[in-house]
């Protein structure tokens, strides 16, 4: 993502064939996710794999479609680390507390 950051200051956007390739990769990954949906995996495993695949897809969309790859690297540093940090904080404070529900057994139903 950072390799091209200093190469150009203007809009040296990728070619249409590059975007088409990215699109095909995204579509194929979506197809893999659908196939995965029919594997009988434990919900936690399944959700983890699906989210990881989706994070990869999101990275492709941000890097190519949203031109992040062609921006100055400082824009990336201004936006992405803070966002990831905030999401991590939501996870860290949310999930341990949320697990209390599991200990309540069937109280939820």
């Amino acid at each position, binding site marked *: 993502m950072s390799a091209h950051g200093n190469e150009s200051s203007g809009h040296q956007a990728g070619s249409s064939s590059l*975007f088409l390739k990215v699109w095909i990769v995204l579509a194929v990954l979506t197809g893999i*996710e659908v196939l995965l949906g029919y594997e009988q995996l434990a919900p936690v495993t399944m959700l983890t794999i699906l989210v990881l*695949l*989706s994070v990869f897809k999101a990275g492709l969309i941000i890097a190519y*479609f949203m031109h992040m790859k062609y921006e100055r690297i400082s824009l990336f540093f201004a936006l992405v680390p803070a966002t990831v940090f905030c999401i991590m904080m*939501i996870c860290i404070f949310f999930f341990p507390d949320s697990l209390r529900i599991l200990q309540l057994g069937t109280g939820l139903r």
Partner: protein
Amino acid sequence: MTKEAQAPLTGVWSGGGAPPLTSSKKLGMWLFIVSDTLTFSAILLAYSYLRLANPDWPRPFAFYPGIMKSFGMTLVLLLSSLTMVLGVAAMNRNDRKATVKWILATAAGGVIFVVLHMTEWFTLFHEGYTPWSNPEGVPLFGATFFGTTGLHMLHVSIGVIYLLVMAAGISRNKFTAEDVEVSGLYWHFVDLVWMFVFPMIYLMSIKLR
């Protein structure tokens, strides 16, 4: 816009340059996207834990129409992202006619997505899955499913209006290449959110045979 871009970016003591050397419009859209990312993250995290904590979470999505329809919706939205990219590229070449064409194609993708989504919602209503109740007796499913997909659908609808306004303006020689790029950022973000909603909500609730 050209005035801002050409203004000398002097030393830090006189305000300096914008740190990422991005125009205020683009940075503004990026900051909106960051805040919206956190909104959807919170919603999807809340959903994840409800889903995992609940062993009898409803699984209403059969292969057809549920999964096939939502897979088709995913492809339509992805395709509209591709046409948006081509629209931005056309505007960078200053080809306004092609830009309008691509943006209208993008908006059409958004409309198809919303229409398919609505028919899917009505199928679910007929099967007894409403925002308040469902046959499995897990009302949280309705709250999270219709809440999340509804908020996303609202984003798509706003995006369609945004794109139509852009297309009307561009054909009347308004807006710059950067304005189109900023609207593209919003549209790709809507697509990006769906890349999480589709696997996490639909594929986690496939009807088992």
